[in-house]
């Protein structure tokens, strides 16, 4: 059994919004609402969900880029909220993030060398121009670019190449965990597969652990070992990818699987078309999050909130109908 690298317990992030006539009433957008999960060393944990389900917020919470409202995050058995500033800095080195938009996440005024060298300098990992240059070139080669690219600026690269630079920057500090937030969704199909293959290769070579966030279930399924499906601030189903695909238990997962247009020869399927849209995450009432759009919801679903329950085989689901 490999060790647990990342664990969250009852993690919450609420955003206050003012409403009422004079902005007197404060309501909360429950962006992430009580998420508990574990990621083991060397594992790829995929998070899928639609826009507004809180998947990116969860990623940022883990990286400590935003403050949590409540809950615990532990990395390698260290509770992040109990660390001093200096200790936090060390842990930060272990967690790096790759962002969605390779056009916005690289500073256009910095050369590629400076972009990749910055984390090295900040964390004091390389000294002197020569050592830094050597390390930058090594990192560029890791991600399939070349030494001569170092002197260029981001605008000289295509989307796929920029994403490679973003990955090289994340790798600079030799992290253990990489949070990749929609790393391929801004890329064209033919480039998307190049980047996915690169991430897979790097994982094996450098012994990395990924939390891979995306809205595209087929991409997540391809790269992940385990998948968590998020809906309105929490996981509704967590399972091994084979299990998830073969035996989806939550109606939302079933709908999601059926909604994906498949690029294959097949009879055009009878799909499950969900009614309505994702409901507002403002103060959801005590009920199953999905009940409003679910075709098998009963009174129980509208009045009680199901919690994640192990159905055996490490397959967790929160649905009253599936429990039966």
């Amino acid at each position, binding site marked *: 059994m490999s060790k647990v690298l990342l664990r969250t317990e009852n993690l919450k992030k609420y955003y206050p919004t003012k409403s009422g006539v004079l902005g007197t009433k404060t309501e909360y957008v429950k962006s992430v609402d009580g998420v508990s999960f574990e990621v083991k060393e060397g594992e790829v944990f995929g998070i899928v969900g*639609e*826009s507004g389900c809180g998947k990116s917020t969860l990623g940022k919470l883990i990286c400590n880029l935003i403050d949590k409202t409540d809950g615990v995050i532990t990395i390698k058995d260290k509770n992040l909220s109990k660390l001093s500033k200096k200790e936090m800095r060390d842990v930060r080195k272990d967690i790096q993030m790759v962002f969605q938009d390779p056009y916005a996440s690289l500073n256009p005024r910095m050369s590629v060398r400076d972009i990749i060298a910055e984390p090295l300098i900040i964390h004091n990992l390389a000294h002197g121009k020569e050592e830094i240059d050597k390390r930058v070139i090594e990192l560029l080669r890791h991600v399939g670019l070349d030494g001569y690219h170092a002197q260029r600026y981001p605008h000289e690269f*295509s989307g*796929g*190449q920029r994403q490679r630079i973003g990955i090289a920057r994340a790798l600079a500090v030799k992290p253990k965990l990489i949070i990749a937030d929609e790393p391929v969704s801004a890329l*064209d*199909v*033919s*480039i*998307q*597969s*190049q980047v*996915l*293959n690169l991430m*897979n290769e790097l994982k094996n070579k450098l012994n990395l652990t990924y939390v891979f966030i995306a*809205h*595209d*279930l*087929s*991409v997540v*399924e*391809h*790269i992940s070992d385990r998948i968590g499906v998020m809906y309105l601030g929490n996981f509704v189903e967590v399972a091994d*990818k*084979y299990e998830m*695909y*073969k035996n989806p238990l939550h109606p939302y997962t079933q*709908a*999601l*699987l*059926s*909604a*994906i*247009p*498949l*690029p*294959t*020869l*097949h009879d*055009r399927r009878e*799909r499950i*078309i*969900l009614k309505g*849209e*994702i409901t507002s995450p403002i103060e959801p009432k005590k009920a199953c999050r999905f009940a409003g759009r679910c075709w098998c919801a009963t009174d129980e679903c509208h009045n009680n909130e199901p919690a994640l329950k192990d159905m055996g085989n490490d397959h967790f689901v929160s649905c009253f109908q599936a429990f039966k």
Partner: protein
Amino acid sequence: MQEKESDILLDIKNLHTYFFTDNGVVKSVDGVDITLKKGSTLGIVGESGSGKSVTALSVMNLLTGTKGKIVEGNIHLDGKDIVNISEEEKRKLRGGDIAMIFQEPMTSLNPVLKIGDQISEAIIEHFKTSKKEALDKTIEILKKISIPRAEKIVNEYPFQLSGGMRQRIMIAMALVCNPKVLIADEPTTALDVTIQAQILELMNELKKIVGTSVLFITHDLGVIAEICDEVVVMYCGRVVESGDVLSIFKKPRHPYTEGLLKSIPKLGEHVEILESIPGNVPNPKYMPKGCKFEPRCSKSFDKCREEEPPFFTYSNGQKSRCWLCKKEYGGEV
């Protein structure tokens, strides 16, 4: 397969649309032939920069005011030339016989106009009706595409609606004048999968009810497989392969189509490494002399570098622009 003249609704022949920029000429569309049959849905698939949107804009005559110009070629709608006509006639055509749905429902609706006013505008413009009549017709159409609370929604503003709802409004707006051709430019790309499924289903139903022919532009082969009858694959401003959807998915004849199909992760198929197309789309300023896909193609040989292949047509109507289709080089044609 020889189609009857009368079956063809939209006929694009040898279309060349160039953009004359300060840094030189960009040949966005460089010799494209597309025929759309009555009542069918034709998908145009390609990566960013392949010229699929510019083809659509050329058909819509929406290039005025940009640096783009149709420099060669013809577009016929129902046998009528729609390129060399007066600006007045073009206005009548847009939103009348040809309507378009855009990718971004957030930015293509006017944020300061009520939904009802935006949809009525086209009705008033094309049918010269009164405001009242136009609004009644608007509500009727909204109901037809099963938008709940149609009477209320006409008095709301775009920001009050969700993305899926806005896209439905766009569809309603495009359909008000019973267009012969509906051009949908990535209509579901900005939407979530479950909402995408709703919109695709809606478009499929509408096709049956209204009988409009659809030109569906997307980069998602999955969406193509789901709703199109025919496909055109574009690369670097050219059509590289075309044919009916089943033949192309069963046996792609162009290495680019083949590569695209293989590079998409498929649900339930577990492979360690995805096949991918190496390299990038070439810079439009430095296009290769021969086949435009040659630098990225694993099957290329000398002939590909020397001369750009013409179309080779298979007996099932499938066409491919690849030398390997020729008998001389081991193909079947």
